[in-house]
């Protein structure tokens, strides 16, 4: 793995993960969590 792809993966993985987790089926729990504020 090249240096730039290593850093790109390092930065993008958590960012995509943060977006993917709600998109992949937690919309209800996320909404419940946010509306409980």
């Amino acid at each position: 793995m090249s240096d730039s792809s290593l850093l790109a993966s390092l930065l993008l993985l958590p960012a995509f993960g943060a977006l993917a987790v709600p998109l992949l089926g937690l919309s209800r729990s996320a909404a419940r969590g946010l509306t409980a504020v």
Partner: protein
Amino acid sequence: MATTLVLSLNAFTTFKGAGVPSHLGLDWPWMPSLGVSLRFAVDGFNVYLLLLTALLFPAVLACAWATAEAQNKLYLSLLLALQAALLGTFLTQNLVVLFVLWEAVLIPMVLLIVVYGGPQRRQAAMSFFLYTMAGSVLFLAAVILLGLEHQQQTGTWSFDLAALGRLAISPRKQMFVFAAIALACAVKSPIFPFHSWLPLAYGEASPSGTALMAGVLSKMGAYGFIKLAIPLCPDVAPVVAPYMVGLAVVSILYGAVLALRQTHVKQLVAYASLSHMGYIVLGVFSFQHTAIQGALFQILSHGLSVAGLFLMLGLLEQRSGTAYTQTTALSTQAPRLAVVWMLFTLASLALPLTSGFTAEFMILLGAFTQGLQAWQAHAGVGLLVAALAASLGVVLGATYMLRLAKTMLYGEPAPSAKPVADLRVRELLALAPLLVLILCVGVWPAPLMSKVEAAVSQIASHPTSQTPTLSRTAAISGASHGN
């Protein structure tokens, strides 16, 4: 998170300690006409923070695994968003991107407090949010001013940190930029007198939120001093250094005294954190090679030990509920838990062979060396007195941490108290990497030291940093009046 950890460890081991900027980087244009690019690189200033961020998040998640909040995927999403924003903040080499990510960190952190915090969570989140936003308003003005300055001097826009560091900026403008960046960093760290948000936010956030705030978020402030304030204001920083050292010493002693007076364990660790952050600022503004290296070690060491302590408090809270503050006799009830708590305590009070000792010893050694040189050169005794006062903080630190350990580990359990279950394998595995790193840095710091050597030399060898004397001060203030 596991993949991020593996990639971070790979980046950490690949990085051999080149200067700034490093060879290990990537560069994507974002707003080319404005000189804003997504340039990220590992360098000597962020390499420890990369390791710390990569290590702490999986530990936090593993420790919270059995709690209700970890079952909610929003929690996981917020953790990942926070990790991404923090990694971006530490690795970016562009000032606009750094500012954007610096602010972006606030969103998941505030949500973590508001959704998963204690009874006063809204108030805590609001105070944390308002303080840090207020600290960042002038930061934005400084970003714009630096971009404009580059445009006026070279004819092109750029927010590249290396390019901004090469600009010849008037002392008056440097003073504004320094004040703006230092204010944002002082609130984030926090250091005295910008710490008012700390007791409420640390007290009300969930244990994992507190561990991340004290372990990584507070390090953004320390990183800002080293990465932004000094390189971008090379003439003004040594002049202002005595005041920053003064604030650092007040933070060390004030935090320690308040920690001594606390009866609530979480507040005690919170104020201890304020005290230990003061050592980082003292090391940085001593402008001495060993002290700055010690400050970088302290960023790593304090991040590990304070996050470990808050995670342990979270584990106790999972076992005993709100009664965890009354915990006693852990050594007989839960021996593994007691040993791990003691190891984090020893690292926190800077016992030799732990990372805390390496860091604080180097900071104090560097501060004493620089202070002694200044005294011998008839340039004042300020730094020497500051180093002496900071040494007192070590003694106070040992006092409150050992007193806390004595209360929690020994004595008789209260008759009504529920027995505390010992650490499970999952919890031990979550905390083990933190402990291993604490001991590695304490026993054999050389491999880590070499990674930051070149970067530290760039700050420590700055021509003005060696002579922060009255004549230099007069020259700067004279030039400032002339503008």
